[in-house]
Every structure is written in structure tokens, then in C-alpha cells.
């Protein structure tokens, strides 16, 4: 295994700075959301205060098993993001992410509580809805850059001829943006866990988690969100510093767009979530790949 300096820096930066960036994003999100709703909003650092408060709460749980699953959820989310920023195989990253998310689902199921089971099932539904598009994103990046390795994708592929992958993957980019709404747990697809109290079934998948355990879930989400934006970043890479900058800017713009969508829609039914995301996956993602395959002869 040849380890590049960039990979080590990326990994270290993610492990240390990941939760701070993610938490800060969450704070900005709440502030922007408040402004969109005509409120002033909490301080930017509010998510950190929340987590500190959760940690200080009395430690209670509904059974001896569920904390273990949440711990695994956090560990595997960190592994997933770590593999991503270490420049490893994109498919490996996606599969590990699935395992990580499944730990959260199992944790919710294990409580055998009605509300958290509904949340868990909905979480599974959401995973089923977004997974094809995430895999197609990886396939698309592979087709344009000739590698599943993130460290290679970062350089932009020989096949793309110095162009950024986005040039050939506009449909896939749109599809990814669509399912990112699900992944960020934003309306209209925040079925399993919402930030907005008015449309939630108790507290969805996290109903039976409290105190320190809930804090771990928050931190895991911060970690997760950072590397989800990393996917967006990949679409713009061709190995130059200015495209790296563009990637960061676009990722931030996409985050803003998701916040806007979140505030513009109410929650949809599960049928719509599943059908809409699969339809988008086919019409944008699959169509993009098929066109790429037959007309560009890139493979």
C-alpha cells in the first residue's frame, strides 16, 4: 500500500476537524433555517452546547443492548469517512457506510419500542431509496476516471482528459443531489428522523436514545455530513488547486440548497420517497451512464 502524504493529511484532518466542521455546519444550518422562517435563531455554536448538555444528563437506557449498537454506528461512520479521506476505494466506502447505518437501525429495533421501530423501518426504507443512486455515482466516477480509488479520482482520470468528472456526469450529479436530501435528513424526505418537531413521530429512529448515547448519534451525524459533501467535491477534481477550491465552494452551495429545500417542503409519504428517488436514479443516473457508455465509448 503506497501511502501518500495527502492521504495522511486528509485522514488526520477528518478525524480531528471532522466533528467540529460538521457541528459548525449544523449550527449554520439552524441559523439559516431560522432566518428563512423569519426568526433570529440560536448561536452558531448551539449544537456543541446541546451535545455538552446531553453528555451531562443522567445516564438511562431502556435495555443493556442498544448502547452497543450506537457505539458501533459511530465507530463505523468514522471508519467510513476515514477510508474516504484516506483515498480508498469508493465502493468500499459506500458498503461500510451501509454497515454503519444499519447499526443505528438495529439499535432502534433492539429497544422493541413502537416509535423507534417505525423510525427504524423508515430508516431502512430511506437506505433502500438512496442506495442505488450512491452506487451509480461511484460507477459514474469510475467510468470517467478509470478508478474507484478516491486518491486516483482526485487527480481526474486520463479518460476524462484533464476535464472534471462533472463534464460527463451531469445527470449523476443531479441524482446525487436529489438523494443527498434523504441523507441529510431534510424535508421532504426526513421520514425517519427530522429536525422539525412539528412533523415528527415522537423522535423517529432516536426515540429511545437519550443522554450520552444521543450525543454520540449527533457526533456521528456531523462526521457523516462532512464526508457526504466530500462526494460533491469529487465531481470537480482534476488535480488542480483551483478546482479543489471550486469543489469546496460548490459543496457549500449544495449544503445551502439542501437547507432551502428543507424549508420549502413538508414531509412526503414513504411511497413518494421511494418512487421519486428511484425514478430520479433511473432518469438521471442510469440514463447518464447508458449514454456515456454507448456514445462516448469511454469504457
Amino acid at each position, binding site marked *: 500500500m503506497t501511502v501518500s502524504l495527502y492521504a495522511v493529511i486528509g485522514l488526520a484532518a477528518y478525524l480531528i476537524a471532522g466533528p467540529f466542521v460538521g457541528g459548525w455546519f449544523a449550527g449554520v444550518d439552524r441559523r439559516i433555517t431560522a432566518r428563512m422562517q423569519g426568526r433570529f435563531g440560536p448561536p452558531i455554536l448551539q449544537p456543541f452546547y446541546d451535545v455538552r448538555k446531553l453528555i451531562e444528563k*443522567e*445516564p*438511562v*437506557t*431502556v*435495555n*443493556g*443492548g*442498544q*448502547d*452497543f*449498537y450506537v*457505539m*458501533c454506528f459511530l*465507530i463505523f461512520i468514522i*471508519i467510513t469517512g476515514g477510508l474516504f479521506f484516506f483515498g*480508498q*476505494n469508493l*465502493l*468500499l466506502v459506500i*458498503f461500510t457506510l*451501509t*454497515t454503519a447505518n*444499519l447499526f443505528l*437501525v*438495529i439499535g*432502534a*429495533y*433492539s*429497544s*422493541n*419500542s*413502537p*416509535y423507534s*421501530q417505525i423510525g*427504524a*423501518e423508515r430508516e*431502512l*426504507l430511506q*437506505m*433502500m*431509496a438512496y*442506495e*442505488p443512486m450512491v*452506487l*451509480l455515482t461511484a*460507477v459514474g466516477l*469510475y*467510468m470517467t476516471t478509470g478508478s474507484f480509488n478516491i486518491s486516483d479520482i482526485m487527480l481526474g482520470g486520463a479518460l476524462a482528459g484533464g476535464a472534471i468528472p462533472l463534464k460527463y456526469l451531469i445527470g449523476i450529479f443531479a441524482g446525487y443531489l436529489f438523494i443527498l436530501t434523504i441523507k441529510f435528513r431534510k424535508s421532504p424526505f426526513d421520514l425517519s428522523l427530522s429536525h422539525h418537531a412539528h412533523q415528527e413521530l*415522537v423522535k423517529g429512529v432516536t426515540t*429511545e436514545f437519550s443522554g450520552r448515547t444521543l450525543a454520540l448519534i449527533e457526533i456521528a451525524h456531523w462526521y457523516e455530513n462532512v464526508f457526504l459533501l466530500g462526494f460533491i467535491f469529487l465531481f470537480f477534481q482534476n488535480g488542480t488547486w483551483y478546482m479543489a477550491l471550486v469543489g469546496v465552494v460548490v459543496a457549500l452551495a449544495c449544503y445551502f440548497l439542501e437547507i432551502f429545500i428543507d424549508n420549502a417542503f413538508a414531509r412526503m409519504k414513504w*411511497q413518494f420517497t*421511494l418512487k421519486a428517488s*428511484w425514478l430520479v436514479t433511473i432518469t438521471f443516473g*442510469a440514463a447518464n*451512464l*447508458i449514454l456515456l*457508455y*454507448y456514445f462516448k465509448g469511454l*469504457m
Partner: protein
Amino acid sequence: METIIVLILIPLVIALALLFIRHDAARRPVVFIGAIATAALSVVLAVQQGIWSDAAANMLWSGETESAEITGYAMMGIEAALAIVIFVLGIKYKKALACILVAVQCPILIWFELFGGGHEIEVKNNICIDQFSLIMVLIIGVIGTLICVYAVAYMKDFQHHHEGQPDRRWWFFFLLFLFLSAMFGIVLSNNLIYMYFFWEITTLCSFFLIGYTKTDEAVRNSFRALIMNLLGGLAFVLAIVLIGKSYGTLEIDQLIQIGVTSKSAGQPDLIINSVVMLLCFAGITKAAQMPFNSWLLGAMVAPTPTSALLHSSTMVKAGVFLIVKMSPLLGVQGILSIGEPGFMVMMVGGITFLLASFSAVTQSNAKRVLAYSTIANLGLIVACAGIGTPEGVWAAIMLIIFHAVTKSLLFLSVGTAEHNIGSRDIEDMDGLFGRLPRLAVFMIIGIAGMFLAPFGMLISKWAALQSFVDAGGIWVVLMIVFGSAVTLFYWGKWLGKLTAIVAARKNIQDKVHGEEWFVLAGHIVLVILISLSFPLFSGNVIVPFIKNFFTGVSEESILALSGDNMIIMVVLVCVILVLPLLFYGRTRKRIVPLYMGGANEGDNLTFLGAMEKDVPVSLRNWYMEGVFGEKLMNRIGLISTCIIFAISFSFVANLAYQVYRYVQEGGVFS
């Protein structure tokens, strides 16, 4: 050479012995000894033939001419006798189609062998041993015999549950061991006539095993399985006649050599193509691919060890074995490959993977979920073989190995659960963690092994995905991404049911038989061992095999996963195994009641409903009948696969016409 014959004969001798042992107490030691002997011998054969080195690469053996001739006649005699048995049974149960199929295919073969020139064809090598067949020998020898051992305990309970019915267990165990013997025959044959002989024996064994209980449903389903497999058998016979008549050979290695030569010369041989297509069709019926998937679902009426055997180490694996063997002659070149065998195999496999995964979502019967998952995974194996690249074959072989172990584990676990909680419904497995904790852990490992990183099946799926992307099988890529998303859903919700901790469940674990624990634990050891050692296994067994199988391929083009990624997976397996040992269930927190809208009665099982009444909590899973309806999926599968068969075989029909004209003009068939 002797080891091979002994390996086929030992299960056969045990089977015959079991036919005459009617006492359970006497049967037990015979089954155990037979199982140990068979398993040990399969390991000996694998070691002796050097599975772990290049030495095993494609060794071919010829028997002595005289004994081969006697064997040939004996096989023909047995085939004729079996055909008569089927015919009589077909008349007895009024199954005309079975009679017709058997009345067509058996005479064709006998005519071909006696009068059609089949007898004159000199077969140099009757037996073929390579790493792939040795892998299959190990799967059959180890998993198959473990299932036989399990069956001893299971059938005791089964007989107990079906009191008043005649004890026909001697017949059951006879069939189990006969099945193993025939499977060894299939995977070691190089002579197509031999392979066909064993092929038909497995068809018959599964027919009798499915019909074991002799209920109306069992008889109906057993005939369905028989008819579908006879259809495949007919295709097999036609393939034999076609290759024998046109090229004067009956050997698989010859067939592949001729095919590869003409393929690399850029002129695909139409006769070889149709032979391959017919053989793959036979494989598709046996591997229960759509539209023939219904026989495997119908097989659920049989006692659970039968399902475990059919799904993991025998029967369906014979189907995929043959298709993987053909893979150098498969493969696709873009959209123009319609009508080539590779296209047919790949598309049928892909469609089956997608639709069977969809159907599994709507099932709450655990055995049906497992059955659909088997069909789906076999679809993936078939598709991987159909793409015909070294990467695809690597993924296919990995899938065969992982699937055999994991699926057998799951079936046997469900069997044990069924006998102890009285239901095979996933909804009744609520709180299995409290009632049968060890079994629940075994099932969880099995399920995780089926779809989750970093375990085996996922590694193979990953390799499969990459090999389709590389080979341009874009349509199958789409089927895989949607199919695997759904796979995640149906396994995930089952996993959730198992892990749920339900209050006040009594532990009934000590009622499970010792043999069952032994076999289940053996499976667990295998699952973990394979997940940890697969990079070694890949490097030392599978890669050397593929290097010989596809001459002149580099190691890089065989491995979809780089060595680094394999090591990462193994490390993750270690992490996932160590974490629960260290941390599961260790909490010093205060335990509080669940939230139930503020009205939990305190026991986590009832809440205070409207009208001040106690209402028991009942949690049910999600089946989405409206989206993934089983009937709809089967109908779509039937139509789409039939269209593909029609397109593919219309090319064969066209070819038949050309051959006919060729003969008219005085070609080779004189």
C-alpha cells in the same frame, strides 16, 4: 484416481446401507460414520490433488477402456430403469408432461449411444480435476455431510411432530447420501454422458426428497420440480447429441478448447454456441432461475434439511457449476451480442437477481425469504458467469463458496427455530434473542454474512459489480444496484426482529439437540474462517485456477478487489467480531421503561389504551405488498426471461436450418 472413485462410492455405499436400516438407534452411527468418512475423503482428495498449488490445474484422467465400456452400459441401464420409474409415477399421479419429457429424452440418448454413433466416439478423459471442482468437492463434502448429521436430530423431531405417519426416514437418508454421491459425480466429470447421468440422478433425488411427505402439496411440488428439471435434462441430451454428432467429442475440455479457438479467431462457431446455449439452459433450470424459480419455492414443503441441501451445497450449485464451466465461451460484446449464449445467461441471471430480491421483501415466511435470496444470489452467479471475464468468474466462485456456507447455516437455524418456537414466520421470531439467544446470534451472523460489509457475500457482490462495469454489462449493473438496495431492506428488517429485546421471554435454549448445536457451531466456524482467510484462498486457489481456465490472463485482470482492499475487509471482520465480545450488554446505566405515548404499564409489553384498558403491544414488520408484489414480479420475470430465451433460441433454430442444409449438401454428417 482411486480416491475419486472411492469418494463417489462411499456415500453410495452408505446410502445403500441406510436403505436397509430401519431403526433410528442403528441409523445414527451409520450416518455419522458416513458423514465423517465422506468429509474426510473430500478433504484428502483436495489435499492430494494439490488444491493449494498449481499442480491441480486441469488434470484429466482416462479410465481403462474396458471398465469404461462396462460403466457406460451400466449407466445406460440405470438411466432406462429410472426413466421407467418416472414414467410409471407420472401415470400414477396423472402428470402427462413428466411422462412426455422422459419418453422423449431417454430414447434420444439411448439411440444416440447405441445407434447414433455415440458409442464409437472415443472419450480420452472421463474425469476432470481442477481447483474449481475441488472447491465444489469440499463444499459438498463438508457442508453436505454437516447437513446429514443435522438431519439425524431434525428428523427425530419431524417424525415426532408427524405422529401416525409411517416412518420413512430410511428413504430420506438414502436419498441424502445418494445426492452427495451424484454431486461428486457431476463436479468431477469431464465426459458429458457421465455428467448427464449424475445430473439426472440429482433431479430424481430432489424429486423424491420434495415429495417425501406425500401430501398433495408435496406431490404437486415434487412433480413441478421434476418437470422443470427434465426440461433442462432434455436440453442437456440435445447438447450431447449435437456436439457428439458434429464434432465427434463428448468431453467438456474439448468443447471449451474448440469454442475458445474459434472465438479467438473471431469467428464464433455456431454449433458450439448452440451446444453452450443448451447446456446453460439446463444449468438455468437446475439453478432455479426465472422462469423456473417456482420449483425451488415449492421445494419448501420438504423437511428443512432438504431445503438446506438443495440450496447450499447440491442441486442448484450443480446448475451454476455447469454454467461457470462454460464461462470461457460466454461473454458479451456490447448490444450486438443478442443471440449469443453469454447474453442469454447474463440477462436471465440479472433479471432473476433483481426480481427475486424484490419478491423477498414481501415474504414473512423465513424459508421463503431464504429461498428468494438463494434464487437472487444464484442469479448473480449466473450473470457473473455470463459476462465471461476472469473477474466475473472470480466473483462467481467466491459467491458459490460464501453462499453455500451462509445459506446452509440460515436454513438449519430456521429449522431449529421452527421446531422450538413452533413457527417459521419471521414475525414470530420477535425476541428470539431472549428465548434462544445462541441460535439468535447464529442467525444474526448468518444474515450479516449474507449482505453486510465486511463479510463474504458482500465482497463477492462488490467484485461482481466491478466486473460488470469493466465488461460493459451496463444493464446488469443497474439490476445489481437496485437489487442490492432491496436486499439490504429485507435482511435489515429480519435482523431487526432478531435483535429486538422483548421483555419477559423465557429461555428455552436447552431443548435443542446436541447434534444441531454441533452442526450450527461448525457452520459459524466456517463462516468466520472463510471471511478471515479469503484473501489467501483467492490467491492460492482461485487465481491459479482462473489463470489456467482463461489462458494468458494477468493477475490484475482477475482480481476486482486489490490486495489492500481485501486486507481492509479482513481487518473490519476482526473489528466487528471483537467489538461485541468487549462491549455488548455492558451498561451501568439505570434501565427505564419504553416510551409508549406516556402510558407504558411498566412491563414494556402493555400500554394503557383508550377506555382505560390494557392493550398488549404488537409490533409488525413492513412488507410493501403493493410495491414489490410477489405475483407481479414473477409475471414480469416470466415474460422477460421468456423473451430472452425466444430471441436466443430463434438463433438456434436458424442455425438448425443451416445445419440441415449443410447436411443436404453432403457435409460432415455421413
